[in-house]
Structure formats: structure tokens, C-alpha cells
């Protein structure tokens, strides 16, 4: 029991310690206040975070013995804690800096993204969470392959997982390197090596327990920092949003246009397609789905989605206020800008470090150099926590799905499987560093969209159809799942973002920005048609065994014995 309590206590102590550090550093750091180069407050606070999380990793490693400990934190996470961790997985540096930057650049349009990212959560709760918890053990492949062919479905699920993880991870690594270079004055290569090395340590030694607590601490720090910024902005306007909006309209070069849909959504098909990718992609992200196995039962799984939705909704409202605050605080202050050709300052793109730095500059404007340091350290911590979660889910797909079920065909033991997972985490970390380095100067913004599109077009349809449709067969899932995966990737490669902007061709083959509307349709129709066409004996057996799966997915009867906590 003591050991159980010690991790939450250590985490609470860390959050408190960060608060103390802020006050202790107040005197020397404020006069620094530099926007670039070395920020001593940021470095001290980041070191405090790293030391604290390494201590937690050490404690978690001592307590982690079984596979259930490694993959699912022994099922000992509460609904509230898991809600924070899920929200942490979702509140990446990209969504904090990216969405506030979008609001800064174009106002209303930024809100569209946050809404898209949020509305997937109710869908996860209504259609996925409970069934997942009742049927699965460690990965969503456990669920999809429950009554279907283990080998084939696990190959499909692991492929879907690794593709999503790879694109998501590259986007995070490149973003991390750029951000740390800017905030800490650290060389790009050093930055990604530090991120890669720390995530390997968290995952390989601490497994899900350490990854979860790193995520929880970071979520608290990020929510706290963002709350402070939003309150500071609102306080400046007497807590009257209308006053903030009208000041923003007066200040912004686009004027009143920032209050309405703008150029970003000129094409309805792309808008709807992106909306579907964001909404249903959430329900297919492997590192998020894995979190439902860290709680004790279906009730706790439900509660964790409820808390997560609340935290994420609150966070997006904060980023919206922060974006508008950045317009009013920064656009009239030339010290945040570099002049373009002929000494003309562009109030949007001229922002030092680009529009993604809007929140960081706002931190300096409302809280001085010290608070800037805090937000920089939190941004770094955020990247670490998110990449650790991604690495763990990639490593689990390799060890639990590919190794244990496909290569060893069940003839392995827990210790060996966990060791394979740890080795895989190291390999994924090294590959992520290399890819982060290779892609340094590429435009990787499309990769997060692609990760969501693949999750929505491969993982989600297979998961939904195998649990909800009696007629779904292995053949159907394989055909539809791979068709969704391949078509999503192909359509992105042939779209403007890659075909024209990266490869330099003149015209894009695929006219829309996001493939989900088409690739999801292909996946669902593929699963349906191929399942219908499959008249083999195996297909009949699979359909016949749906009832047993159905009873367990609805009631959880039989689930307790499958997963020892």
C-alpha cells in the first residue's frame, strides 16, 4: 500500500516543488527576461522536472514486475488520474503552441481545430471505451483479434499502430528540436538526442507507470500555466471577453475578419474530411486506447473519459483566450517582431520564431522572464511526456502483438515479452532521433493530420466493426483495414502538402487536404464487402463466436479473470 501511495505523493511533491522554484528564482531571473538564447530559469525548472520524473521512473521500475505492470501500470490508475493522463497525451506542445498560434494568426479558424480534436472524445466514450476495457488486456489488437484470426489481425493492428506512431513521433521530434533550439538556445541535434534519450529511459525502465505519472505531472503544470496566462489576459480586460475581442479586432491586421470563418476553410470537402479525421482518429490512436487498460474496470474507464473531456475542453478554451490575448498584448509591441524586407513589420508572420511562438511570447508579456522560463520548461516537459506515450504504444505493438502472438505464437513468457518491449523502446527512440534529424528541414505539419487520418481509416473501422458487427470476418477486416491504411497514406502523398510542397511537382493528384472522408469510406465498405464475400469455414466460425464476445463486451463477465490485477 505504501508503495502504491508513493508515486502520487512524489508527483504532488514535484508539482509543489515547481511552484517553490518559481518563487525562489523570481529575483535573479526577472531582469534577464530575454526572449532568445539561454534562459536560466527555464533550464533550472526543466532540470527539476527531469530529476523528479527520473526519481518517479526509478520508483516505478522497482514496483514493475509483471507484464501487466509494464503495459498497464498494473491496472492501478484511478479514473481521475487516468483522465489527467489521457488529457496529457492529448495536450501536446503542438496543440498548445499550434492552436494558440492559429488563433493568433486567424482568430476563429483556430477554434475549428480545437473543436475537431475535442468532439472525438464523446464518441470514444459512447462506442469504444467500455467494450475495449471489457474485451482487452494491453493493446487494442487484443480486442480486434478477440474472435478473429490472431496472427493476421495482430499484423494489421500492429502495422496501423506503428504507422500512426511513426508519423506522430516524427512530427513531435522535429517540433521538439525546433522549439528547444528556440527556447533554450540549444543545438537542434542535442535537443532531439536529449528528448530521445529521456523517453527511452522513461519507457524502458518505468513502463506504463512512469509514463502515466510523467503525463499527469506535465498535465497539471501545463493546465496551471495556461490558466495563469488566460486569467492574466482576462484580468487585463476586467474579465469581459467582449472587451478582449473588440481590442483584438482593433489590433489585428485582418480586423473584423478574425471573428468569422476565413480562408482556411474555403473548401467544404477538405473541411468535412479534416473534421472526420480529427473526430474518429481520436478513437483509433493506439497510445490513447492503451490507457483504458490502466484502470481497474469499465466504470473507471468511463470516468476517465469524462474527466479527460473536461480537462481537454477547458484547455482548448484557455488556448483560445491565450491566442486572442497574444493578439492584444503582442501586436502593438515591436520588440516581439523582426522587420521584413524594407523595414516593414508583418504583424502575423513577423513574430519572432513564427506564429507558433505566440503563447511563449505572451508568457513573457504577462509574467516576465521567470514565467517565460516556466512555460518553456513546461513545453519541453510536454514533448517528453507525449513522445514517451507514443514510444510505449509502439513498443507494445511490437512485443505484445508481433512478437508474442505472431513470431513466438504464444510460446513465450511474460519476462521475455517485457524485455522485447524494452529493447523495442530503445530501438524506437534511436530511430526517432535519426528521423528527427533527417526531417529537420522538411515541412512535417501534415504528419499529425496523416496520423489521425490513418487512425480513423484503419484502426477505428477495424475496432468498431469487429466489436459491433456480427458479420465481420478476418478476411473483411484485413481487406478493409489495409485498404483504409494504404488509401489514406497514398492520398496524402498525392496531395498538395507532399506532392507539391515536398516533392516539388506542379500539380497535386489528390485535390483535398485530408483523405479521411474517402479513406474511411473505403475502409468501412471494404470490411463490409469482403466479410460478405467470405464464405469459408473460418468465417462461419468467426460469426458464430460473436455471441460470446458480445456478452463479454457488454457486461464484462469473464473479463476479470483474463486480466489479473
Amino acid at each position, binding site marked *: 500500500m505504501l508503495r502504491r501511495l508513493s508515486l502520487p505523493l512524489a508527483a504532488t511533491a514535484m508539482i509543489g516543488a515547481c511552484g517553490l522554484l518559481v518563487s525562489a528564482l523570481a529575483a535573479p531571473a526577472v531582469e534577464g527576461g530575454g526572449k532568445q538564447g539561454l534562459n536560466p530559469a527555464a533550464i533550472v525548472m526543466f532540470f527539476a522536472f527531469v530529476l523528479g520524473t527520473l526519481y518517479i521512473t526509478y520508483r516505478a521500475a522497482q514496483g514493475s514486475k509483471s507484464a501487466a505492470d509494464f503495459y498497464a501500470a498494473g491496472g492501478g490508475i484511478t479514473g481521475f488520474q487516468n483522465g489527467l493522463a489521457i488529457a496529457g497525451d492529448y495536450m501536446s506542445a503542438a496543440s498548445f503552441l499550434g492552436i494558440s498560434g492559429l488563433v493568433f494568426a486567424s482568430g*476563429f479558424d483556430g477554434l475549428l481545430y480545437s473543436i475537431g480534436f475535442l468532439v472525438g472524445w464523446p464518441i470514444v466514450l459512447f462506442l469504444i471505451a467500455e467494450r475495449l476495457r471489457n474485451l482487452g488486456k494491453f493493446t487494442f489488437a487484443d480486442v480486434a483479434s478477440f474472435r478473429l484470426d490472431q496472427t493476421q489481425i495482430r499484423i494489421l493492428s500492429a502495422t496501423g499502430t506503428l504507422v500512426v506512431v511513426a508519423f506522430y513521433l516524427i512530427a513531435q521530434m522535429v517540433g521538439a528540436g525546433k522549439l528547444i533550439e528556440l527556447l533554450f538556445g540549444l543545438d537542434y541535434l542535442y535537443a532531439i538526442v536529449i528528448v530521445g534519450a529521456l523517453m527511452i529511459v522513461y519507457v524502458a525502465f518505468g513502463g506504463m507507470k512512469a509514463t502515466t505519472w510523467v503525463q499527469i505531472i506535465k498535465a497539471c503544470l501545463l493546465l496551471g500555466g495556461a490558466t495563469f496566462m488566460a486569467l492574466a489576459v482576462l484580468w487585463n480586460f476586467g474579465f469581459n471577453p467582449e472587451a478582449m475581442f*473588440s481590442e483584438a479586432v482593433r489590433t489585428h491586421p485582418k480586423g473584423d475578419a478574425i471573428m468569422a*470563418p476565413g480562408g482556411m476553410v474555403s473548401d467544404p470537402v477538405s473541411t468535412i474530411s479534416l473534421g472526420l479525421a480529427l473526430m474518429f482518429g481520436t478513437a483509433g490512436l493506439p497510445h490513447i486506447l492503451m490507457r483504458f487498460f490502466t484502470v481497474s474496470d469499465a466504470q473507471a474507464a468511463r470516468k476517465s473519459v469524462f474527466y479527460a473531456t473536461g480537462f481537454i*475542453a477547458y484547455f482548448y478554451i484557455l488556448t483560445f483566450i491565450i491566442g486572442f490575448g497574444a493578439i492584444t498584448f503582442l501586436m502593438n509591441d515591436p520588440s516581439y517582431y523582426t522587420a521584413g524586407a524594407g523595414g516593414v513589420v508583418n504583424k502575423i508572420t513577423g513574430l519572432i520564431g513564427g506564429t507558433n511562438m505566440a503563447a511563449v511570447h505572451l508568457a513573457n508579456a504577462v509574467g516576465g522572464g521567470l514565467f517565460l522560463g516556466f512555460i518553456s520548461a513546461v513545453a519541453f516537459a510536454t514533448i517528453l511526456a507525449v513522445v514517451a506515450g507514443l514510444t510505449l504504444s509502439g513498443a507494445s505493438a511490437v512485443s505484445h502483438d508481433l512478437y508474442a502472438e505472431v513470431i513466438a505464437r504464444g510460446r513465450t513468457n511474460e519476462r521475455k515479452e517485457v524485455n522485447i518491449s524494452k529493447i523495442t523502446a530503445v530501438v524506437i527512440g534511436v530511430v526517432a532521433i535519426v528521423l528527427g534529424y533527417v526531417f529537420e528541414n522538411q515541412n512535417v505539419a501534415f504528419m499529425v493530420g496523416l496520423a489521425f487520418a490513418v487512425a480513423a481509416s484503419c484502426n477505428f473501422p477495424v475496432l468498431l466493426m469487429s466489436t459491433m458487427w456480427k458479420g465481420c470476418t478476418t478476411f473483411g477486416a484485413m481487406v478493409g483495414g489495409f485498404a483504409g491504411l494504404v488509401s489514406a497514406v497514398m492520398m496524402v502523398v498525392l496531395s498538395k502538402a507532399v506532392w507539391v510542397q515536398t516533392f516539388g511537382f506542379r500539380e497535386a493528384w489528390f485535390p483535398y487536404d485530408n483523405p479521411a472522408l474517402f479513406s474511411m469510406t473505403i475502409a468501412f465498405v471494404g470490411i463490409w464487402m469482403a466479410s460478405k464475400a467470405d464464405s469459408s469455414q473460418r468465417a462461419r466460425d468467426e460469426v458464430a463466436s460473436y455471441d460470446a464476445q458480445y*456478452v463479454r463486451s457488454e457486461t*464484462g463477465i469473464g473479463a476479470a479473470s483474463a486480466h489479473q490485477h
Partner: protein
Amino acid sequence: MVQSDHQRILGNPKFQELVRTRSGFAWTLAAAMLAIYLGFILLVAFAPGLMAVKVGGGVTSLGIVLGLAVIVSAFLLTGIYVQRANSRFDDLTRDLTKEIV
């Protein structure tokens, strides 16, 4: 689970009631969320002028108000489901489990 076990549960009226009420409830809420979100996206895509209409006499637009309302509705819908599931549906599941075992 033994073969006959799930047959017995499938035929149990409590199980049938649980599944019927819960899946009806879940699909209704999912459809509501989808309708709210797609409705919002379609308005943005096809009626951007309407979204720019001012409300309350200031610069605040209908789009901003509706956008924030979509965010709040997502949270409320999850709250409604969890409240219902953690009381009524869990009671039904408990009763059913007791009856079976």
C-alpha cells in the same frame, strides 16, 4: 466461458434490457454529438456569412458563441452518459451478474 453460459446470458431478459437501453442511449448521444459537430462544420463551410453575424451588440460573432457551445456540449454529453451508465446500467449489470453466477 463455457459455451452454454453466454447462451443463457443472451436469453436473460435483464441482459436484453441492459443491451437495448444502453446501446439505444449510446447511439442517441453519439448521433447528437455527430449532428452538433457536423451541423457546426457545415455552417462554417456553407454559411460563413451567418457565422459572422454579430450577437449582443459588440464584435462577438455567432460563430464564436456556437463554437464555444459545441465545446461545452461535448463535455455535457459525456457527463450525461457517465451519470446514467454509472448508476442505472451498472445496477443492471450487477443484478445480471448476481443472477448468472
